């Protein structure tokens, strides 16, 4: 009331303006404050540790500022790890796209019951611990394992195949872990396609194949690229499955970081590897953003 009395003598547009502005700011701040506990936690347990590692990567063994940790990455052992990691990441991403697309497609186009069954078969591995699934693959693929046993019983092979403790086993296990991450976003983008568009396309004279290629597929690129981007990024830093299924022979980036710490205690080298990993991850995510924006723009 006092505010009214004070400001009523002012020019139009200033009546109560001060107190209303203060209320607005207060209200905004209280909404913002709700995010503070989470932000503080992320700052302390994520940003501080990771940035500290960035800082460490700039010092050599003697504690001097140098590029040594980064220069070392030219060495053949590091180069081999990089190429292995990227090769596996690409293979897994491509395989997930090819295996996941038909599954998501059928799930989005079929009736309630069938799509629920498919969804459950995707969610079961999605919710099951990575450790459990990796363990299951180890049991399935080992020399005395189920698959070799069956193949031998059927007389298809004489000696057991080396299916695990190598890159093949790693890739199979990783595809199994990553596939749900492809199917779920693809399904979401396919579900959003207006079914009448396909009727419109065929009405315009498109064959089913043309309608699929020219109308349906372009609208699922958002789901495809977000799934692929997520999988590629996860593959670059993946640890559990390659350690357990790679048998020490398949050496990936994350393993190199872990070994630098647990075997050699070389924080500088591990940190530099981490920085490069973060940069590679960021670049992939930016590329996905770019694709998404362009796909969004053409709609």
């Amino acid at each position, binding site marked *: 009331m006092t505010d009214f009395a004070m400001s009523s003598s002012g020019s139009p547009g200033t*009546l109560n303006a001060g107190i209303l502005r203060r209320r607005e700011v207060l209200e905004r701040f209280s909404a913002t404050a709700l995010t503070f506990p989470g932000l503080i936690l992320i700052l302390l347990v994520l940003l501080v540790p990771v940035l500290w590692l960035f800082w460490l990567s700039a010092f050599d063994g003697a504690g001097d500022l140098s590029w040594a940790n980064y220069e070392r990455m030219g060495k053949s052992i590091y180069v081999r790890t990089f190429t292995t990691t990227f090769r596996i990441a690409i293979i897994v991403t491509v395989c997930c796209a090819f295996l996941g697309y038909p599954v998501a497609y059928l799930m989005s186009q079929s009736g309630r019951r069938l799509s629920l069954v498919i969804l459950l078969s995707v969610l079961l591995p999605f919710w099951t611990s990575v450790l459990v699934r990796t363990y299951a693959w180890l049991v399935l693929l080992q020399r005395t394992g189920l698959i070799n046993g069956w193949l031998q019983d059927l007389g298809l092979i004489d000696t057991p195949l080396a299916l695990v403790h190598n890159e093949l086993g790693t890739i199979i296990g990783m595809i199994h872990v990553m596939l749900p991450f492809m199917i779920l976003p693809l399904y979401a983008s396919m579900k959003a396609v207006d079914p009448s568009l396909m009727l419109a396309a065929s009405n315009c004279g498109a064959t089913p194949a043309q309608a699929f290629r020219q109308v349906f597929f372009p609208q699922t690129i958002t789901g495809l690229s977000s799934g692929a981007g997520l999988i590629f990024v996860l593959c670059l830093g993946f640890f559990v499955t390659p350690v357990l299924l790679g048998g020490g022979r398949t050496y990936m980036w994350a393993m190199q970081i872990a070994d630098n710490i647990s075997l050699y205690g070389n924080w500088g080298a591990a940190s530099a590897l981490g920085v490069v990993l973060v940069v590679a991850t960021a670049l992939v995510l930016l590329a996905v953003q770019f694709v998404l924006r362009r796909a969004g723009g053409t709609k």
Partner: protein
Amino acid sequence: MPGQVAIREVSKNYGAFVALDDVSFDIEPGEFITLLGPSGSGKTTLLNVLAGFTRPNSGSVQLDGKEFLTLPPHRRDVGMVFQSYALFPHMTVMENVAYPLKLRKIGKSERERRATEALSTVQMDHLADRAIQSLSGGQRQRVALARAMVFEPRMMLMDEPLSALDKNLREHMQIELKRLHGMLGTTTVYVTHDQREALTMSDRIAVINNGKLMQLDTPSQLYDFPANRFVAEFMGESSFLPVKVSDGTARLFGNPIVTREPWSGDHDAWLLIRPEKLAWNAPQQGAANRIQGTTREVIYQGDSYLLDIALPEGHSVEVRCNPHTAGIEMPEPGETVSFWIKQSSTILVEDAGQ
């Protein structure tokens, strides 16, 4: 009687968009005021300012002489009826209506007594234990009303509460709402974009466009004395013909017309054509206020015909005509027609000032 509202210089902008531009008016205790305007005109923004959901940039609203705008929504004591009803789906009918009383720390038995009373006012007491999901649209509407009035608010706010109902039910509820308002006598601010609804229910109507108050008047004043072309256009079926006023004489296509009020100065204006105010058969009036044109099309519309008439200087007008009340034969396309505007019905308006 409490419920006197004084709205002063209320302005709200979102960036460059001006939602409310210096709006001021008074609402008398117990009055039923309708905010009428097209979508995006600012009528809902003004209602949300009164409810406390939108904070204006400046201005003042006083309720019974006390500043109201700086109060948070929960301390304003206004009953609001939402467009979507906003009934709580996880509560029964009774729990919904008793909710505001519970918040006011009223004991359980008293709470139920008052909630039942409010429900019986809207004839919903027999469904008190139902879940909200099992109610029809009209029933939800009644529960929302009961919930908004059960705590005897100082003012009722209604945001297009009938827009989700079908036509028959809507007209029935309009009468019901009017009855309720007469019974309770609570100051009510009602938002709608339906001019017929506004005319039916309101003591006074505030026509709003582009965030500005165009005119605040009783329904009949708005209809017969619109302040500008926008208000005239919004109230009832209307067409406009350009008129030039010079030396106190208004001219339509060069011919002087006799107007209701004297006009002075030199300016452009519009002659408002309302179908029910036209005379189709008045040759005794001669050339005074006669408008002649050529019929282009005659469209049958059940109770009436729609005539598309070409006028001089490239103008045209579409008017509705009932052959029985007009006492004429419907013209054929290509025929010349004449109609007259009585002096008492000549309404000249100007464009809404910016």
